[in-house]
């Protein structure tokens, strides 16, 4: 089973075309294993991306180096998945 310990979901809201282009370029960096929950689609629209733990620092450094602000939408994906599983188990009980 795939686990998501340490994975975070970052929310990026491109403020200008340059930032939008930088974010779009991230989609081609396969080595980062990014999972775009909301793909880039235009200025002012949130881009939500799940980032595996090993890629977190490199990606954050890249965003900060390019002056692209982001927020952490989900601190630890696995924690939410575990909670969801627990709720399902409780309900089926």
């Amino acid at each position, binding site marked *: *089973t*795939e686990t998501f310990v340490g994975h975070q979901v970052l929310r990026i809201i491109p403020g200008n075309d340059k930032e939008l282009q930088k974010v779009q370029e991230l989609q081609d960096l396969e080595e980062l294993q990014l999972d775009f*929950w909301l793909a880039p689609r235009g200025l002012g629209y949130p881009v939500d991306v799940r980032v595996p733990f090993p890629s977190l620092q490199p990606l954050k450094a890249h965003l900060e180096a390019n002056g692209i602000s982001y927020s952490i939408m989900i601190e630890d994906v696995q924690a*939410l*998945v575990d909670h969801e599983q627990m709720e399902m188990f409780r309900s089926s009980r």
Partner: protein
Amino acid sequence: LPLSTSTFDYSSYHSLDEIYAFMDLLVAENPNLVSKLEIGHTTENRPIYVLKFSKGGTNRPAIWIDTGIHSREWVTQASGVWFAKKIVQDHENDSELASILDKMDIFLEIVTNPDGFAFTQTKNRMWRKTRSKQSGSVCVGVDPNRNWDAGFGGSGASKNPCSDTYHGPYANSEPEVKAIVDFVTNHGNIKAFISIHSYSQLLLYPYGYTTTPVPDQEELHEISEKAVAALSSLYGTKYKYGSIITTIYQASGGTIDWTYNQGIKYSFTFELRDTGRYGFLLPASQIVPTAQETWLALKVIMVHTRDHPY
């Protein structure tokens, strides 16, 4: 398993088996209104079921609703379960719904991607695609919302089998897609087709593969405006609406582009809520409010379809 659909927990996420058991219970409790059709089998040989809600007649004009084509979008399958119960509960006391069913049938496919859904429950919660094997690649699965014969293989889908938007080796390569294509083609009298995704609060109409506006753009835009107003009236959830390509991005091989091109004028896609910061991991406590608000929008579309035969 629950004793009846009245004791079923609609405020919780459920496994594939539990949803299939719910469907059987609903049919058993309402044999004069609900039946279960098997429209095909998946790559991993799971049955693909559609619930039919009908007051009789043969091959009547119909409305199609599907949820869960992207397996990780759990709030959609859960909403589909709630819609099924709502139709049964209200088919007599809700005059609008009663009059829709007097003239039309409703088809509801709750788990449109069973293999992917089972995979999210056992191996990878974040799985989106089907589970078909790709020759020449270690990667698995095709994006079932890029596999339709409408602008297939164009911009807005990936040719890389490892991509989450991989369009597949050819149009309708996925049995989950082919099953619907065959059903819609054989039925021949479907007048509205609504495919439900999550998340980002959007109500979309064709096209996604081209910037060319659909001939019925004005009417679809008006319907969307009314539907979104009805949806927002319940909990204030803010939606945007428009054509796929102008509202989000170019997406080729999409479901409702194909259905529209088959002549199903009232073709729509929903992207349900996350009004917070949960994305695909929307808490189960939000299932019922999400389904309730979406139902109001669905009824606007269904009433319009009933009143505008074509």
